C-alpha cells in the first residue's frame, strides 16, 4: 500500500466524516434525515464566490463568513420550515426538508445562474507539498488537520459542557430532557447550527477540489453523508465518523480496482455494497444506544 493511497484515503475519509457528522447531528435529535443539508454546503460555496469575486475580503475572512453563512442558513431553515412541522408526522418533516432543498437550489438558479461559477481560493490551497516522501496537494493535508481539530473540539463540547450533555441526552430521550428544564427549541437550534457549521467547513474543501460552485454542488456531499451515516450507524456520532472513513476507503479501493470500463458504475457499486451490508446489519457498524423516539 503506497503512502499516497494512505494520505488520499485519510483526507477523503476526513472530509466524508465531517459531512456525515453534520447530517447526524440533526438526525440524532430530531430523527430527521435532512435533505436540505447539501444546500447548506452550496450556500457557503456561493458565499465564497460572492465575497471572493465582488469584494476585497481577505481569503481567511471569506472562509469564516462562508462557514457562518451555512450555519445561519441551517438555523433559518429550522426556524421557518422545520419548527412548524416538527410535531406533525415524520414524513411531513422529511418532505419538508426535500422541499427546502429544492427551494434553495432553485432560488440560487433564479438569483445567480444555473451555470457553475469560479470560486477564487488562495493558490497555496492547491499547491503541492511533499510529506513523508509523498507529494500531495496541501488541501489534502489541511483537510486532515481540520477534521482532527474539529472532531477534537466537538468531542470536548459534547463530553464536557452542559450544552453537550443536554444534546446527548436529547438524542437519547427527548421528552425527558425537556423535563430537566432543557429548552427543546434551543437544543434543536444548536443542532442545526452545528450541522450548518460543519457543512460550511465541508464546503471550503469540497468547493476547493473544483474551485467552482454550481446550484447542484450539494447533491454529492449529501449522498455521501447519507450512505456514510447509514453504514456507520445512524444513532451515534461516532458511527458517522467511522462511516465517513469507511466510505472514503471503499471509494478509493473501488477507484483503483474497478476496470476502466466500470468506473462510471462506481457510485452504483457503492450503494449496492451498502444495501447488501445493511441486510446483515441494519443498525450499521456502530450500534447506538439511543432509542427511536419521535420528537413531538
Amino acid at each position, binding site marked *: 500500500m503506497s503512502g499516497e493511497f494512505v494520505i488520499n484515503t485519510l483526507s477523503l475519509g476526513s472530509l466524508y466524516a465531517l459531512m456525515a457528522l453534520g447530517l447526524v447531528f440533526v438526525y440524532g435529535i430530531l430523527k430527521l434525515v435532512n435533505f436540505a443539508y447539501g444546500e447548506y454546503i452550496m450556500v457557503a460555496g456561493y458565499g465564497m464566490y460572492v465575497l471572493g469575486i465582488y469584494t476585497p475580503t481577505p481569503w481567511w475572512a471569506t472562509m469564516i463568513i462562508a462557514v457562518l453563512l451555512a450555519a445561519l442558513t441551517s438555523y433559518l431553515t429550522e426556524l421557518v420550515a422545520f419548527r412548524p412541522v416538527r410535531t406533525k408526522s415524520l414524513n411531513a418533516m422529511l418532505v419538508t426538508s426535500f422541499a427546502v432543498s429544492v427551494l434553495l437550489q432553485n432560488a440560487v438558479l433564479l438569483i445567480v445562474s444555473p451555470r457553475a461559477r469560479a470560486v477564487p481560493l488562495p493558490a497555496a490551497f492547491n499547491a503541492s507539498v511533499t510529506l513523508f516522501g509523498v507529494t500531495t496537494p496541501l488541501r489534502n493535508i489541511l483537510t486532515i488537520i481540520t477534521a482532527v481539530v474539529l472532531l477534537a473540539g466537538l468531542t470536548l463540547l459534547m463530553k464536557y459542557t452542559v450544552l453537550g450533555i443536554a444534546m446527548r441526552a436529547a438524542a*437519547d430521550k427527548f421528552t425527558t430532557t425537556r423535563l430537566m*428544564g432543557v429548552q427543546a427549541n434551543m437544543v434543536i437550534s444548536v443542532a442545526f447550527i452545528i450541522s450548518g457549521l460543519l457543512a460550511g467547513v465541508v464546503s471550503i474543501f469540497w468547493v476547493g477540489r473544483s474551485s467552482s460552485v454550481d446550484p447542484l454542488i450539494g447533491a454529492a456531499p449529501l449522498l455521501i453523508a447519507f450512505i456514510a451515516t447509514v453504514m456507520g450507524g445512524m444513532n451515534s456520532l461516532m458511527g458517522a465518523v467511522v462511516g465517513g472513513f469507511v466510505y472514503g476507503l471503499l471509494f478509493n479501493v473501488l477507484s483503483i480496482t474497478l476496470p476502466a470500463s466500470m468506473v462510471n458504475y462506481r457510485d452504483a457499486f457503492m450503494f449496492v455494497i451498502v444495501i447488501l451490508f445493511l441486510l446483515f446489519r441494519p443498525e450499521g457498524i456502530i450500534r447506538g444506544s439511543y432509542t427511536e423516539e419521535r420528537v413531538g
Partner: protein
Amino acid sequence: MLTVTELQASYGAITALHGISLEVNEGELVALLGTNGAGKSTTLKSICGVLRPVQGSIEFAGESIMNKKPESILKLGISMVPEGREIFTSLTVAENLRLGAYTCYERSRYQQDLKEMFALFPILEERLSQPGGLLSGGEQQQLAIARALMSHPKLLMLDEPSLGLSPTMVDNIFELIGMLRDRGITILLVEQNAERALKVADRAYVLKTGHIEFSGTPAQLEKELDIASVYFGGSKDKSSEVTL
C-alpha cells in the same frame, strides 16, 4: 399549592381523563391510585406539560400552568420522576445528575447538593462515572429520584416508582419517599401498589377510567376499601397486599 380542576385529556379519539379535580397542599404527600389505564400517568403528564390537556385548568402556586412547555413548568418548581425511570442510558450517572441541576446550576451549591444526594443514595457515588444504562433497576430508580431532586423542586411527582423492582428495593424506595416527606417536600405519588402508598400518604385519590372515584385520608379509604375491592376485584381478607 397545586390545584387541578375539571381536567380533560385525550389521546387522539380516546378520552383518558373525563374532568378530574384534585389538590395538593404544601408539605403534603398525596397518593394517586388506580388500575392500569385509569388515567394516573395521564394526569401527571398533563401537569408536567408533556401532554396537552383538552380542557380544565391546572394551577400551581397561584399561576396557571395549563399548556405551558415542560421546561417552563420545571422552572416553576415541579419536578417529575417519569414512569420507567427514563434514565439517560448513554450518559454517566454524574451527567444525569448534572442535567437534573440544569436550571439551577451554581458550582458551590451543586457540590453541596451532590454530597447530599450521595448521603441519600450512597450507591450513586460509587457508580458516578458509569453509564446510566449499566445500572440495575433499583439503582436507576434512585438515580431518577436524585436527578429530579437536583432541581430543588417545590413539588415532586413520582410515577410508579416501585414498578418492576425487587421487594427489598420497593421497601427502600418507600422508606426514601417517607424520608423526603419528612423533610417537607411536597409529593404527588402515582402508584399501583396501593397498600404501600397509603402507608406513607397524607391523603389519597382513587382514579377509575378517567374519573375520581374516591378522595380522602388513608384511614377513610381503608374504611371504604371493601367497596373499593368490589370495584377492583380481590377481597381485603384474602391478601394483605391490596392491589388496586
